[in-house]
């Protein structure tokens, strides 16, 4: 079955009245017939999908299958009810994503919630779930399992390193599958340093909608080109410019758009990944950056990640090269309820013996959102959200609303 035929099947299913109305609403008014798309040109006329569009839809619409066909449902958010995915009962369509990427006999995954490993029927490795809320216990279990690979979000894997190293010879970790769309290059470098024997650190793309599975499959790196990613047969990739026009041919550059052609609970049709890509031909492409760049947007203006990094490095005495910035609803010390805040995760290994609350205050006072105003002053005026500096990752199983703030910082 070629891509076009898979697209027809997928599109027909998306438009079935027995399914959620998400795609029917998205495609309302389009001149489509039962055989759509007849050509790739027709396919490229479909509106692009984004995370914002998905997030705006009620969660029921994102369960893309009739309730009576629900096979398994996974939930990822305790506060917003937004991260819900359902898997069709009639066909378990899990992507054995990590399995393909992890040529190891034992690994621990934080990326996927408990239970998913059982679906990797063809996977011969022992897969065990990590609990990001209990990293020390997970490290103990991992050490007993003598794991050789790990998978998960970068913040968790960075934090996990110290727990694991305390109980295990961390040089056994040879392979890391990291959640690519939340990983900065600095974090990737930190992973390489913290797991010195991990010669294979590969990218895995997920959607926040489906933390239970890889909605956008990972791509095994092409050995002939270490930076290139190889598309999966069940994926279709396009490259579009800022106006959404498809850029074709070798060396085409633009934003990566992905379509999941397999029978997923909520297939992504023409989903903008937020990656800047360069197509190399033969299904290979390079990720060259993130479309948002290293920017944090505030009501008060734009904060450059470089400036944030400069201040953190200054305040911590040059130690904090690796940090993760997120926006999330978290408990701030002097506020009674969850507050939308800018959270800076600075790994403990860089701030040992330092009062992180003090570091956070110093950052607020030093960081400038404009020539006239420091970050602390902007917070006081309500133009910026509170800044919290932490040693531990703020989310991952704690039920807090969290979303990625900025993307890969370009080096």
């Amino acid at each position, binding site marked *: 079955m070629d891509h076009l035929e898979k697209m027809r099947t997928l599109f027909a299913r998306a438009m079935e009245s027995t399914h959620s109305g998400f795609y029917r609403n998205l495609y309302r008014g389009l001149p489509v017939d039962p055989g759509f798309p007849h050509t790739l040109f027709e396919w490229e006329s479909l509106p692009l999908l984004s995370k914002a569009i998905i997030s705006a839809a009620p969660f*029921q619409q994102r369960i893309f299958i009739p*309730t009576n066909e*629900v*096979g*398994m*449902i*996974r*939930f*990822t*958010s*305790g*506060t917003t*009810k937004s991260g*819900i995915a359902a898997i069709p*009962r009639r066909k*378990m369509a899990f992507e054995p994503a990590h399995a393909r990427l992890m040529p190891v006999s034992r690994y621990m995954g934080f990326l996927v*919630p*408990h*239970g998913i*490993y*059982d679906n990797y029927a063809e996977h*011969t490795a*022992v897969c*065990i*779930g*990590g*609990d*990001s*809320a*209990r990293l*020390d*216990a*997970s*490290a*103990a*279990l991992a050490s*007993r*399992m003598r794991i050789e690979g790990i998978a998960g979000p970068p913040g968790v894997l960075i934090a996990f390193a110290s727990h694991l190293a305390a*109980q295990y010879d961390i040089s056994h970790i040879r392979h890391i599958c990291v959640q690519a769309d939340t990983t900065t290059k600095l974090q990737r470098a930190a992973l390489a340093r913290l797991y010195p024997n991990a010669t294979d650190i590969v990218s895995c793309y997920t959607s926040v909608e489906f933390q239970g599975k890889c909605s956008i499959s990972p791509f095994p790196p092409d050995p002939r080109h270490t930076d290139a990613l190889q598309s999966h047969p069940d994926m279709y990739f396009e490259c579009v410019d800022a106006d959404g026009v498809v850029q074709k041919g070798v060396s085409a550059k633009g934003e990566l758009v992905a379509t999941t052609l397999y029978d997923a609970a909520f297939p992504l049709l023409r989903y903008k990944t937020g990656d800047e890509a360069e197509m190399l031909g033969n299904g290979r492409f390079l990720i060259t950056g993130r479309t948002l760049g290293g920017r944090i947007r505030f009501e008060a203006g734009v904060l450059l990640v470089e400036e944030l990094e400069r201040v953190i490095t200054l305040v911590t005495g040059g130690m904090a090269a690796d940090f993760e910035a997120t926006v999330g609803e978290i408990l701030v010390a002097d506020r009674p309820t969850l507050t939308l805040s800018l959270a800076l995760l600075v790994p403990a290994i860089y701030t040992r013996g330092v009062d992180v609350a003090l570091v956070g205050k110093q950052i607020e006072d030093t960081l400038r959102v404009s020539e006239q105003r420091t970050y602390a002053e902007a917070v006081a005026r309500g133009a910026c959200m509170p800044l919290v500096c932490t040693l531990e990752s703020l989310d991952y*199983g*704690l*039920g807090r609303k969290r979303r990625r703030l900025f993307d890969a910082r370009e080096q």
Partner: protein
Amino acid sequence: MRSEFPLIWSGGRPGDDYVPNTFDATAPPTIEAVPLSKDEPWETISLHYQTMQPSLIAGIFPAFTQLGTRFEHSMRTIGLPAATVAEEQMRVPIALLESLAIGGIVLRQGALQRCREEVARVSPTAAPYYQVILSPTEAPTVVGEHIFHEIHLVPGMVGLFQCQHLAAEGKGMFHLSDRFSWKHDGSTLMVSDPADKRFLKAILPRRFAVEDTGCPCGESFIRVKHL
């Protein structure tokens, strides 16, 4: 070295699931990995399914226990939809209680009270049954007609359990899983796995008496005195 109860096991086979030997995630030095075969069913899932006939069951577990893996595998075995969620996120499936018609909830005892409160708040008319998982050292704290307790030797391995009749009778009565051989001397209960010797012996420090008759389901049961 602290342990919930003496436990000896051996080996593992390719394809096995691995679970921790304890429910206690605060004791990393004592944590070991226990192999459980995917072929070994979580038999009480199907037992309660057969009697209660839910259309969908939710599993609410701490990720550390690996119970989600066992749960979902069991659910697929009986061909029933399952909703699996981490304990910290239990509000989500409960919020969907009515739209998804969740008829049963499997969870740890520590989450039971909060879960029942959430269910009562979200859908006062909903009456899912609760399958409550206890560690070998825990005792039931709440009894009820539709609250079925079971003691797991390790997460996912049921040793003692309640049918609906025993659950209605009281919290101290359990059936013994017939997957194991049981011995007792009045103060301890020893269990062994005669099938393949992977799970060799465990001792439950309980006082109990064996009742051969009395449960309407026809199975013998034990009356645990110090639960």
